[in-house]
């Protein structure tokens, strides 16, 4: 299957956008989870008597 035929200008951007959106979903999820976990643990530590 050719990678550079007349439809390449449509196929590659479709895969590129998909890769970008998946990267956003993974990175945003990991950053969000890490941030809130650290914040919850810090605040729970602070609020202990």
């Amino acid at each position, binding site marked *: 299957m050719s990678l550079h035929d007349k439809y390449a200008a449509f196929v590659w951007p*479709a895969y590129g956008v998909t890769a970008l959106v*998946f990267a956003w979903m993974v990175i945003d999820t990991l950053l969000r989870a890490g941030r809130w976990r650290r914040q919850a643990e810090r605040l729970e530590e602070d*609020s202990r008597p």
Partner: protein
Amino acid sequence: MFAALANPHRFMGFSRWAAPLLGVVALLLIAPALWLGFAAPPDYQQGTTVRIMFIHVPAAQSAMFVYACLGGASFFSLVFRHALADAAARAAAPLGAAFTLLALVTGSLWGRPMWGAWWVWDARLTSVLVLFLLFLGYMALRSAIDDEARAARAAAILALVGLINLPIIYFSVDWWNSLHQGESIFRPGGPAIATVFLIPLGLMSLGYLAAFGSLWLARTRAEIWRRRAQVAAVQAAGR
């Protein structure tokens, strides 16, 4: 299982290993699907644009599945006032919006060479656009109301009303004249797609669902931590 996981403590224990496990399963499904998809021959009518099918159809299926999950979680949140269900609903919305955006963009990139248009106000395309707006509306509504309990109720009602759009999307190609092709996988008489395309498509669809499962669990965990942080902040301020 639902009753057991409804306990946030148990859910955190379960999701701690289930989220990464589902992520690995997603990679193990998507990698061979990509390989088989790129190795597949050109379609006799659509040429190499058939490759877009391997990412467009799973995105559209996932978008509808995520909305069904959002609706289900919203139902449990609204009827049983379950905090975990509300956290799950909130966590699902951005992922659903992302999958719907992918379905729209990849569909547009497929439509231009096949139909000669980036976009048509066709029943299938328009109902998927409405799905995207429902996800955005859900997130906007939650952000617009300061009282989290009121925001959760209002957003849950919106999500439940929006469920009516799912059968409209699915049957739109049967109910109205459409440029979009009709059901070609789950239909009487078997799939209308050659096996050489069906296998990568099936693997990719399962891979997308596993990826969603992994990300949904991880985002629900993040939402639970956010709420724990809020409670701890209030307790710390009261001391």
